[in-house]
């Protein structure tokens, strides 16, 4: 956490990544049957994780996780929580279970990673909250895992990868969406994943950078699907977060969806309000990465165009490094807006009690 930022209030960091647990670390959370299955199959861990954030890539920031688990957790505390008692960090440990064919193995790994993650949170810092893995390709099994863990106070979000075989508004996902809604957990659509579809809408790219930046398009396709397939009509209390997917594209997406809805809405008559209304009501986005010059006027115009103070949430995206500093953006916002982006919006989203006002120091 930078010490020189001016926004003095507490932060909720809504996108923090734990080091990927090794197969050995997951052992205690797997049944004997699955431990034997892993050993005999030669399973060494999911490829999806190293595929979406290659260890050597500049953006991956793996040196902040390289010192082993204990050192990584110290870095999480130092960079994402700091000293404030009100601070919170929502952690995830993407394990790529969406790549796996065997439904029960995919589910067993989701459970093991979640139980490992919740133990890591408990042992590290009570201010850590968790975003749980589910196998989205098996929505019924995903729903069971949500129901299993939703009672744990640390569990505040369902983590699903941005890349899918079908977009999340599709009716095949109803069991997953219903479970998220009934348990009051937002569906956190996060950068990455390794579904059996290409990472772009136009096929397989040649280079990592194409996939990396292309995730902004994938996020827009997911939001478009959720709106037009009627997910927010069918599940009126469903909430969605867009994590590490950028957000500066939101105004142009809203404009386009609203514009076309006026003339094509008969095809999707359940969309009774302008699409941007659903997006503002149901969706929040993490502010890292910022796809605009952080010190220029463009980013302020974009925030105005979103038309709501309630949709952006602070995130460091630890340990990944971007070229823009999210704290510097907070410093440029009006105090009320900065406070919402830094804390209030995520507090509302994740059910965290509101932070006390920062105290003036008394001398």
């Amino acid at each position, binding site marked *: 956490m930078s010490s020189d930022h001016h926004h003095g209030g507490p932060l909720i960091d809504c996108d923090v990544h734990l080091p990927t647990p090794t197969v050995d670390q997951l052992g205690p959370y797997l049944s004997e049957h699955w431990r034997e299955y892993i050993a005999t199959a030669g399973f060494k861990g999911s490829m999806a994780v190293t595929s979406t954030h290659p260890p050597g890539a500049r953006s991956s920031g793996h040196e902040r996780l390289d010192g082993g688990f204990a050192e990584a957790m110290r870095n999480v505390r130092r960079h994402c929580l700091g000293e404030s008692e009100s601070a919170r960090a929502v952690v995830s440990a993407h394990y790529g279970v969406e790549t796996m064919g065997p439904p029960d193995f995919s589910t067993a790994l989701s459970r093991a990673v979640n139980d490992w993650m919740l133990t890591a949170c408990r042992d590290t810092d009570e201010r850590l909250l968790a975003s749980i893995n589910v196998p989205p390709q098996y929505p019924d099994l995903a729903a069971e895992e949500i129901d299993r863990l939703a009672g744990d106070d640390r569990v505040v979000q369902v983590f699903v990868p941005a890349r899918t075989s079908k977009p999340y508004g599709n*009716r095949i996902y109803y069991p997953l969406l219903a479970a998220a809604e009934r348990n009051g957990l937002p569906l956190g659509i996060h950068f990455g994943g390794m579904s059996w579809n290409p990472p772009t809408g136009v096929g397989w790219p040649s280079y990592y950078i194409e996939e990396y930046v292309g995730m902004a398009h994938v996020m827009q396709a997911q939001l478009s699907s959720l709106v037009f*397939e*009627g*997910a927010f*009509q*069918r599940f009126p209390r469903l909430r969605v977060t867009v994590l590490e997917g950028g957000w500066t594209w939101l105004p142009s997406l809203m404009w386009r969806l609203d514009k076309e*809805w*006026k*003339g*094509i*809405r*008969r095809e999707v*008559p*359940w969309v*009774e309000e*302008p699409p941007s209304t659903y997006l503002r009501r149901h969706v929040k986005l993490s502010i890292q990465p910022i796809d605009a010059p952080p010190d220029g006027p463009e980013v302020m115009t974009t925030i105005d165009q979103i038309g709501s103070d309630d949709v952006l949430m602070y995130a460091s995206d630890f340990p990944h490094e971007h070229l823009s500093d999210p704290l510097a953006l907070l410093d440029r916002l009006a105090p009320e807006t900065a406070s919402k982006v830094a804390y209030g919006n995520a507090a509302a989203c994740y059910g965290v009690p509101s932070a006390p006002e920062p105290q003036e120091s008394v001398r």
Partner: protein
Amino acid sequence: MKRYVVCQTHELPPGTRRIVDIDGRSIGVFNVDGEYYALRNTCPHQGAALCTGSLLGEVRSPCPGEYRYDGSRKLLQCPWHGWEFDLTTGQSWFDPARTRVRPYDVTVESGRSIAAGREGVVPGPYVAETLPVTVDDDYIVVTP
């Protein structure tokens, strides 16, 4: 207020429409199941000939998979971009308060009352010179 005779009733049977020029304005006159409607033939969006578009029932839905079709409500769909307008009120489906097209009153008058020279009735431009008004027929009259 001037009122314009458009045609004889039998010239506009149910299910048909007619675009007429009234005092320099293009206006669509519709007969839907014996009820008459008239709307300005100009889409407020980009000026398309709105009244040449499809007449559709209303489709609404409380949630995905459920369709509530009301064929008694008629929506005129602009041929250019598909915006829907209520044939009765001229209000758009998506923004009824602010995006709307002008509706006009349509009445059926007997030739006798028109010929009697009721004040304000103009055996109007479209038919005045080609169709003599006879007392035994009924006429469609638009009030712009």
